[in-house]
């Protein structure tokens, strides 16, 4: 290779109890290169990144930066070696201001002028086109802006290696474009960027090289232009995938009209404006729209996750009152929340306990599920959903993101819901699991379960949903069915071509 290598990782090993997370993985990053790190859930991407940034200690191997061997035992060591990271889950402090977040832990002396920092922060924010003020509390910014502040912080640290772990999963198209412009800028300044993402299109749009991991092992390193998308996917999941294109061919069958299961009129919550909505038995519909368009808020209102402020709801034609999640659950509604970490998993409890949780709540406190019963439930769903875990008693927090998501899916499937709301079930998940979840949705629908499916990837929704509700500025602006279910039409509606 002619390009100068910036970072080399050789034969990296990392072991967790019961799992070999990394097995002799090599990785090379060159100066001024955007290098995509790809792989399924549990392939070891996040682990490799955490080893590189000192969050985990590697069990074997060596890391060199610009040819010099470095030992990284803490995030501080990584920073000193010129390695900066923006993680998948935002790890800044929401109760500090934007400026404080950008400079926390890196001011040279104790006496730093507050307004100097703020001036400097504003300068950087303006330069990068980030819509935030330095004095604003970070927690008051949207997830997307928080993400960008995290990137601004890393950029400002004069890093040689910038790691972006799923940076785009909470950004909309415009913000993604801004980020990519920024990445290309940095590339010109000889920064090496490691880009971890699940969005294949984005990989092809911005990266120069791709390294693929599978099951903790290196599959290979490829030039992006020499590796067609389909081949990349099959390298990631280790099998050919005609299946991918076959999904959703059954569209014609969906045009039957069974009775309506759920119907809401003028439903509103503290977060959602009044809207009408109904779903038939066995129907899969979707809410789409940009981030902040109100799609999550609407489904949260259906489940009673936010305080319901008005409207009438009918289930099977009978009026019901759904004020709190437990009401919705008792009427056969399940809800997989958008933010898995915050609203989904109980991290320190075992896989088994997480799986039985919702069913136990519905049974009530006085009818506990016995140990043996809960074990057989857990084993069943670990098998059915192919959850990769050392055992059913493993704390769910130690599983990879996709497997955590499967555990939460199992939790709701166990309650045998009539209506399942899935808010971004495929976010931050590998291609293989995404496919599994989409298949599962279709299978549930066949069994007569109504499903609302929300995803940032329009393509995914087109593949699974027979009806799409398009939202903009907290209003439903269109409903697409049949022939209109295509990318262009969705984009047009989102953009406001018609309403």
């Amino acid at each position, binding site marked *: 290779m002619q390009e100068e290598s910036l970072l080399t990782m050789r034969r990296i090993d990392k*072991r967790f*109890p019961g799992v070999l997370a990394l097995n002799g993985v090599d990785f090379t990053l060159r100066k001024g290169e955007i290098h995509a790190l790809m792989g399924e859930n549990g392939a070891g991407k996040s682990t490799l990144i955490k080893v590189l940034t000192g969050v985990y*200690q590697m*069990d074997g191997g060596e890391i060199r930066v610009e040819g010099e061997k470095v030992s990284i035992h803490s995030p501080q060591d990584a920073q000193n070696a010129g390695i900066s990271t923006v993680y998948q889950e935002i790890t800044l402090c929401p109760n500090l201001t934007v400026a404080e977040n950008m400079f926390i832990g890196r001011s040279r002396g104790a006496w730093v002028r507050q307004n100097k920092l703020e001036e400097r922060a504003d300068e950087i924010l303006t330069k990068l086109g980030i819509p935030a003020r330095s004095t604003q509390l970070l927690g008051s910014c949207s997830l997307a802006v928080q993400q960008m502040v995290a990137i601004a912080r890393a950029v400002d640290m004069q890093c040689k290696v910038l790691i972006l772990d799923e940076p785009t999963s909470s950004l909309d198209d415009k913000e993604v474009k801004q980020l990519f412009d920024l990445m290309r800028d940095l590339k010109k300044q000889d920064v090496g960027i490691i880009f971890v993402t699940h969005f294949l299109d984005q990989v092809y749009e911005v990266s120069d090289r791709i390294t693929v991991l599978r099951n903790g092992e290196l599959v290979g390193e490829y030039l992006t232009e020499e590796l067609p998308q389909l081949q990349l996917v099959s390298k990631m999941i280790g099998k050919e995938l005609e299946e991918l294109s076959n999904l959703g061919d059954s569209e014609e069958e969906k045009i039957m009209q069974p009775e309506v299961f759920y119907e809401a009129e003028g439903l509103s919550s503290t977060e959602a404006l009044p809207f009408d909505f109904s779903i038939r038995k066995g129907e899969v519909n979707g809410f789409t729209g940009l981030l902040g368009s109100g799609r999550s808020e609407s489904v949260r209102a259906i*489940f009673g*996750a936010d305080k319901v402020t008005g409207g009438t709801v009918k289930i099977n034609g009978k009026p019901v009152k759904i004020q*709190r*999640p*437990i009401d919705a*659950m008792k009427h056969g509604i399940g*809800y997989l*929340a958008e933010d898995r970490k*915050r*609203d*989904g*998993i*109980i*991290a*320190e*409890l075992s896989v088994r*306990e997480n799986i*039985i*949780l*919702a069913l*136990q*709540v*519905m*049974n*009530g*406190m*006085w*009818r*506990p*599920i016995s140990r043996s019963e809960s074990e057989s439930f857990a084993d069943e769903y670990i098998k059915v959903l192919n959850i990769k875990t050392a055992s059913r*008693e493993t704390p769910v927090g130690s599983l990879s993101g996709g497997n955590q998501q499967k555990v939460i899916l199992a*939790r709701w499937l166990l309650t045998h819901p009539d209506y399942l709301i899935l808010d971004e079930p495929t976010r931050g998940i590998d291609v293989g699991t995404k496919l599994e979840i989409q298949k599962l949705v279709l299978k549930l629908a066949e069994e007569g379960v109504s499903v609302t499916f929300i995803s940032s990837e329009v393509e995914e929704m087109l593949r699974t949903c027979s009806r799409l509700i398009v939202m903009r500025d907290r209003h439903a602006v269109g409903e697409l069915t049949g022939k209109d279910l295509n990318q262009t039409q969705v984009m047009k509606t989102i953009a406001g071509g018609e309403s």
Partner: protein
Amino acid sequence: MKKNGKKAFLSGFGQLTIPLIAIALLVVFNLIRDPGFFSIGISHNNNGNPVLSGNIIGIINGASELAVLAMGMTLVTAACGGQDISVGAAAAIAGSVFVKVLKSGSAINAGTVILAFVMACIVAMLFGTFNGTLVAVFKIQPMIATLILYTCGRSIAYWINGGATPTVSSPILSGIGSFIPGVPIPTPVLIVVAMAILFKLLFHFTALGLFTQSVGINGSAARLNGINATFIKLLSFIILGVCVAVSGCIGVSRLGLINHETLLIDIEMDTILAVAIGGNSLGGGKFKLSGSIIGAYVIQMLTITLYAMKVPSTDVKAYKAIVIVLLVVIGSPVIKERFGRWISRLAERRRKVSAKGAEE
């Protein structure tokens, strides 16, 4: 198969390692210091009944109030991620109510004692509800919320009996506070066992354990799974209220009087410490009741050991602090992680050696 069993054993055991090691060390230390320390004898008490006696009995007996409180405190800690510092003051109130009801009747018989205990329970549960409401409904940090009762509790106890420290004496009370005739084991110890069994049954026949841990670990997720987090937190304080009443009544029965100023004074800190020594996170979430109970005995054994070593009572607290610092540091996540890494490295080496052996 065998390996799996061992692993499950270790992981289930993990949290109890520190308190059990602490107990073991204290036992060994005492045996070396004075081989007769743990001798158990049978003596006759004032009523002429044969009863068990000896340091070990004294320790187990003396820790009773602490152990009962530690059980309730564990639940509050797990659900709310904070502690109730008013348990001592609340126990003084419960004890005062107990005595007040006993005094109001003409004679003390089994009926009046039960009535008095029930009244003490109700009052303590009401105060628990007060604390719990502040924490669960108004979302005040537990330590701040319970600071109110901590501050005023002993004044309330003072009002209940009009500022006096009345004595009560009855064979029934001495039966509760020391020995039931014919039973050589101190009654408070039996009460601790009974409470532990009650808790065990509570966790077995309800899903309270799962709900409490879910609320403590991730309140937002628990709510979205339909758990009424407010109720669970409130309930933990009410259950602690029962524990407060039980320990307050034990305390009164032991002494045969209520002194609102001194009854179970400073016990709140020992209670919190027992929970911590038991390996429970004071930030809430996963918990182990058995850990807290063992923690209570560790504290008591430490105190008695120091007294047995003729450490002046003024210095005992300082020595206790040294031991506790050691325990807490050994149980800290940093040390645990280092130790865990060391263990896995050892296992790794052994695996390599055996693999090599197999090749040859």
